[in-house]
């Protein structure tokens, strides 16, 4: 029992930066991380959907996580990345983030569950983890990708 817990006791997260805050994405949902590329606009869709891109011959929709969180749009910089998420419900979706920082391993026990109110950007967060003195908000991808 003790051993089982140890095996499943850690989760790896990819840490991204959006604005001044850092967020963690469970690595098992991440298919790929690519540099910014040319995005083809799709008309008549939600404002956070930026369009579609070509990743290795597949057409993949991309969304801007800033817009989704209600933050003002920012210029893309050389640090901007597209994190390709593979979701069971939505298939492949690209998330535009301000930067991808590192991969961290967090103890499940060390994660604090969030009880959030359903407005503002907190609603996309399931919990908060601590890493080297900093706080990482863990993203709830189902909420991020939900319409």
């Amino acid at each position: 029992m003790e051993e089982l817990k140890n095996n499943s006791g850690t989760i790896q997260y990819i840490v991204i930066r959006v604005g001044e805050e850092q967020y963690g994405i469970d690595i098992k949902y991440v298919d790929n991380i690519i540099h910014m590329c040319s995005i083809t606009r799709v008309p008549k869709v939600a404002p956070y959907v930026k369009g579609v891109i070509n990743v290795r011959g597949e057409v993949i929709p991309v969304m801007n996580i800033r817009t989704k969180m209600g933050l003002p749009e920012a210029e893309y910089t050389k640090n901007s990345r597209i994190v390709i998420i593979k979701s069971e419900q939505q298939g492949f979706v690209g998330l535009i983030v301000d930067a991808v920082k590192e991969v961290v391993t967090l103890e499940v026990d060390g994660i604090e569950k969030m009880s959030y109110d359903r407005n503002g950007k907190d609603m996309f967060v399931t919990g908060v983890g601590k890493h080297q003195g900093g706080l990482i908000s863990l993203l709830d991808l189902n909420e991020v990708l939900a319409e």
Partner: protein
Amino acid sequence: MDVSQYLEIFLDETREHLQNLNTEILNLEQDPENEDTINEIFRAAHSLKGMAGTMGYKRMQALTHHMENVFSEVRNGTIKIKSHMIDILFQCLDALEEYTANIQENSDEGTNDNEALTKLLNDCLKTEEEETAAEAAVEETKQTEAPASSSEDKWNDIPLDDTQKHVLSEAIKQGRKVYGITVKVQESCILKAARAFLVFKAVEELGEIAISAPSAQDIEDEKFDLEFSIIVITDSTLEEVLGDIRSVSEIEGACGAEMTEFGGTQDQASQAKEEAPEEPKNVPAKEVPSEKAPAAAAAPAAAQGGAKHEKKAGGKAVGNRTVRVDIEKLDVLMNLVSELIIAKNSLVSAASQTGESNAAVDSQIEYLENVTTNLHESVMKVRMVPIESVVNKFPRMIRDLTKKLNKQMELHMSGEETELDRTVVDEIGDPLMHLLRNSADHGLESAEVRKERGKPEVGSIFLDAYQDGNNVIIEVKDDGNGIDVEKVKAKAIERGTITPDQALNMSDKEVIDLLFLPSFSTAKEVTDVSGRGVGLDVVKSKIEMLGGEVEVKTKLGEGSTWTIRLPLTLAIIQALMVEVGGEKYAISLNSVTTLENIAPSEVKLVQSEEVIHLRGSVIPLVRLNEVLDIESTRKEGENMIVAIVKKGDKLAGLVVDKLMGQQEIVIKSLGKFIGKSRLISGATILGDGEVALILDANVLI
């Protein structure tokens, strides 16, 4: 023996045979005397029996065996087809289909013995047998003579044509020996074809098999009874050959003799010379009535098979010229072709970007383009199957409906050979069935009403398929009542779908389109044939899912025509590439009729909508930049480039900024996340790696 690996093939082939039986029995109902039909049914039933037996499905085997018995008698002329027999036969087919369905689901045929059916089948035999008892007695006496001559020297009965005779006499001239051999398989043998194959193999080690009766193909398909005959060219002695044959297990015996003159052996030369050359075909035919039903199974098939194949000199095992391929493998192939076309497009765009044109590169690219286009077409053709496999079940369905609805009707089909992509064919069956049932149930009037209206009492339903450019059109037409627009309106108002005010302003066409809304059924009573309200909307959405469209034209009192238009292929299309506000879009070239250059002064306003007059028709204008929410790059006052697109007989003019030319594009989905955008039907990857969206012109019209 483990037969599970053959299960798929078994199921496929069983379905084919059942379909075949359905069709042929329907033919038989029209023409009970037709010998070809009877033979075909007999053969199908016999193959089914053999297959079921091999796979160990005893009940299925037993039922087909009884069916075969009946047909054997029919073929011998001892009994005649009567209408009640047709019904029994259809019930048998249903029972067989049930077995097949059971087998597919849990690899077991189930426990239904269908004793009642078996009894009915046997009754057919009995009543007729009594009637023809006298006749049968005569047959019996004949029987005693025939086998005596047949079992020993059957090789003499093998019909030889001139080429074969020539081949044999050449062999003798070269000092080789020619033997006629008849091999008998033990009655208990389960895999006769396999044993025969071993015999063939053994003989081929010593020499070559010049001719076999039944043909190699028929033997392979187990279309023979317990015996088969071969003519062998070899350097070995007769004893060696016979010895090797007898060493194959489950072979009861083999006998043979040397042949020096084609058509007969030395010993029996006198007899053979008289009979064999003149009427070789008659000999096996004569045996037919003499032997009892199941045993006779193979002989006629053999005679037929032999006759059919005798022209193929050499008579070596002729392999089937078709291959069964899993559709998934074809999907993979199609994807690879798609990738290749994208790569080719990239190459074209890379070559044009270097600036200087290189004649050698250009001509090679042109060649490559040629190859990829042909490759695409070939793969597409491989995926195409005739719609026959789907529409063949409809005559039976209409026949059943005739009885169920108590209406007289006939189905006339044409264009069954029209081909469509396999995926489309798999999906189109249900919508078509629905439209046909709809015509039968709602469309056609009862016989009395038809008589009053001066129409023939038997209603007609037509199913016509044909290719029209890059589309395939399937029409379901009836000469029934047509759609009563007023009734539809009343129903829609009653259901609250539309308000009475709306109803006043609706055109007939708009009213008819209401039928395609979910849960809309105008049948006064719900029958189990159609009219449960799950219907036309499902038909429509299914056809749209396949990239097609459905339309209906109707005239009250005269009938309706439902027209389904389907694209030939789903994955790769020819597109017109245009630019709007600096963005690239693709429009299926299929829907584009012409390209026009229009001066701004030619644009008129009708009911505050922009239209243009073009060759006598008024065409509404759609400014794509407005639809797509983007600034046009065209300067004020400049001429407009307009692509005229059509949907059915409606036209619209799409205003674009720039034309970029025609290109073969691979359709990709936008992904679930963006969902089905009405305006955009998909995306494609251009030569430079960028993504361009595909506009669905049909939505804009």
